[in-house]
């Protein structure tokens, strides 16, 4: 892998609002030119992290470095990062030209240069000729572009985007995702993007930081986050998963035999990871990786009945009930073979399609979490 230069370094940062511990011991390095997405449900601390980088919140502890320089003490206007706000935050009393020019005016850039750069910027976001209009006269998508232009004109080292597409309808959102991604590639600026939409995160990011209740659960490429989730939360939050509570019983080579609540199965033991005998784990299999057969398969014993089938466009989703009452989801393209409703089938999978996750760390943490929230 090529040597990458760190642009934002977050070191052991905590943030506490009153009694709420919003960000826990966060360590995160963001590299120059990457598109990093902070993904998580609302209240997971992702926006707070963004606001700490932008300078709107101060960390309760820890350090934030931008280009190797500590910035916790710096005001937002002293930092070389810019933000695209969730609600756009366009100045309603200024026309588009003055909105976009605002940052340059504050820096006392010469008039000719301002008008040249505003023109450039508006061309970049395809809003040529909109200079004289006011924010109230623009559509949501256009406001979004103005907000981006207004931030980018300052040539920030890092652009922070706080759920920028949240207010747009689905179709427009898809278009803007592509556009934003292309813009980022073209300019080579680091984008730090906050969203709760996992599809958006998977589609746009170089790396995804999955946040859960103030903790960074996983930081990896979209493929890795999808294929190899490291916690049950990540597996559950991103895409659809079948998660089994299981115990490790035997490891031969890299094939692990695992005991389920009802039956047993095979899985792939991660290299270099050691397991205690009968250690509690989660086994996670994506619906499209679950296989089925009338015959019993060597190493597997999971029997179930197909309860229902749902057609979602060209995909057929089948729900299979297994003996302990758990529903196992199977999805197939409509051109593939699918089980029939009411049919009894044996479930299995390729051992390298299952991800085995240690459950202890996560469990301990959630116990602490629950205790500190008063047992809720």
């Amino acid at each position, binding site marked *: 892998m090529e040597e990458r230069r760190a642009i934002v370094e977050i070191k052991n940062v905590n943030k506490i609002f009153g009694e709420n511990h919003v960000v826990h011991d966060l360590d995160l390095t963001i590299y120059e030119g990457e598109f990093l997405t902070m993904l998580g449900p609302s209240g997971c601390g992702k926006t707070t992290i963004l606001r700490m980088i*932008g*300078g*709107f919140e101060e960390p309760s502890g820890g350090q934030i470095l931008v280009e190797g320089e500590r910035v916790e003490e710096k*005001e*937002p*206007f002293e930092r070389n990062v*810019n*933000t695209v*706000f*969730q*609600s756009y*935050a*366009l*100045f*309603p*009393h200024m026309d588009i030209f003055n909105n976009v020019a*605002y*940052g340059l005016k*504050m*820096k006392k850039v010469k008039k000719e240069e301002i008008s040249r750069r505003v023109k450039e910027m508006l061309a970049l976001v395809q809003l040529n000729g909109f200079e004289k209009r006011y924010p109230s006269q623009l559509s949501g998508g256009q406001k979004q572009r103005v907000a981006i232009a*207004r*931030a980018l004109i*300052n040539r920030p080292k890092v652009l922070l985007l706080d759920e920028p597409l949240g207010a747009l309808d689905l179709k427009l959102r898809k278009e803007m995702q592509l556009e934003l991604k292309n813009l980022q590639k073209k300019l080579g600026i680091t984008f730090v993007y906050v969203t709760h939409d996992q599809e958006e995160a998977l589609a746009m990011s170089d790396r995804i930081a999955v946040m859960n209740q103030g903790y960074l659960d996983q930081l990896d490429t979209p493929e890795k986050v999808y294929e190899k989730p490291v916690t049950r939360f990540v597996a559950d939050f991103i895409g659809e998963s079948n998660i089994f509570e299981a115990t490790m019983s035997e490891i031969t080579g890299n094939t692990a035999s695992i005991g389920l609540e009802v039956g047993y199965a095979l899985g792939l033991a991660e290299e270099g990871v050691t397991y205690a005998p009968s250690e509690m784990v989660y086994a996670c299999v994506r619906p499209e990786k679950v296989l089925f057969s009338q015959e019993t398969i060597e190493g597997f014993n999971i029997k179930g009945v197909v309860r229902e089938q749902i057609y979602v466009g060209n995909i057929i989703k089948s729900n299979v009930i297994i003996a302990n009452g758990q529903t196992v989801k199977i999805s197939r393209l409509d051109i593939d073979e699918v089980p029939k409703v009411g049919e009894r089938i044996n479930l299995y999978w390729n051992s390298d399609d299952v991800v085995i996750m240690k459950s202890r760390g996560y469990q301990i943490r959630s116990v602490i979490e629950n205790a500190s929230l008063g047992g809720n």
Partner: protein
Amino acid sequence: MKKNYKARNKTIPLLTTVSPVAVWLILLVAAPLLYVLFLSFLSTDGYNVVFRFTFDNYKNLINPTYMEIYANSFLIAFFTTLICILAGYPFAYHMALAGKKKKAVMMVMLMVPFWTNSLIRLNGWKTILGKTGFVNTLLLNLEMIHEPVEILYTRGAVLLGMVYTLIPYMILPLFASIDKLDRSLLEASNDLGANKVKTFLHVTLPLTFAGIFSGSIMIFIPSLGYFFVSDIMGGGKSQLIGNLIETQFKAANNWPLGASLSMMLIFLILIMVTVYKKSGGNMEDLGVM
């Protein structure tokens, strides 16, 4: 669906809801004002109104004594408004940025003095500012002065009384406009390189201008007419247009002249309100209290 239906009759509900207010306003707002307009063109025999058409009342408005009173009244109205803006803005800003609970407490605390009649409260000021009042006693004890100074019965005292009576009318619309302000706009401005002062000048101030304007109207207009403030705090030494009108209707019994003075005020207000509306002001904001 029925094929031939009557157009549903909305006349009765409309009449029951709207006609009382229409009748009331026509009889008790429109008619009186038109009558005053009419009065302003009549003459007087020194005691009673005489039905003889004349422009004299308007001509009489222009004379050196009155000019002095207008000037004094406008000066006081202007400085009252200015002081209320300068003193009220930081307070309203602080209140708007406070937490929900603190905001509610501050609001109630602002309203409570209102429930004591302003005449009584102005009399309280009289006690404070008089020759043997707190302020003079304090200054004497600190040896900053050697004999009591006249604070009461000056133009300054009238100004203080005006600011005191009217400042909530500035704070409330200011608070409303600052409270409405989207905080992310301030953050955006900060983010784009503007410090606190620049953000205030380029974003906060322009966006709360409507509040300043409506507050100013709600202060400037009454302060031309609040004759009782001048009576109590100025002891009759600092006459306002309000005192002038009051005199015509009570002591001097020259109603036509008083009517023409009132018309002059109305004309002035018409101009101010038109400017306010033209600049995008909302009329109902003038009635928030």
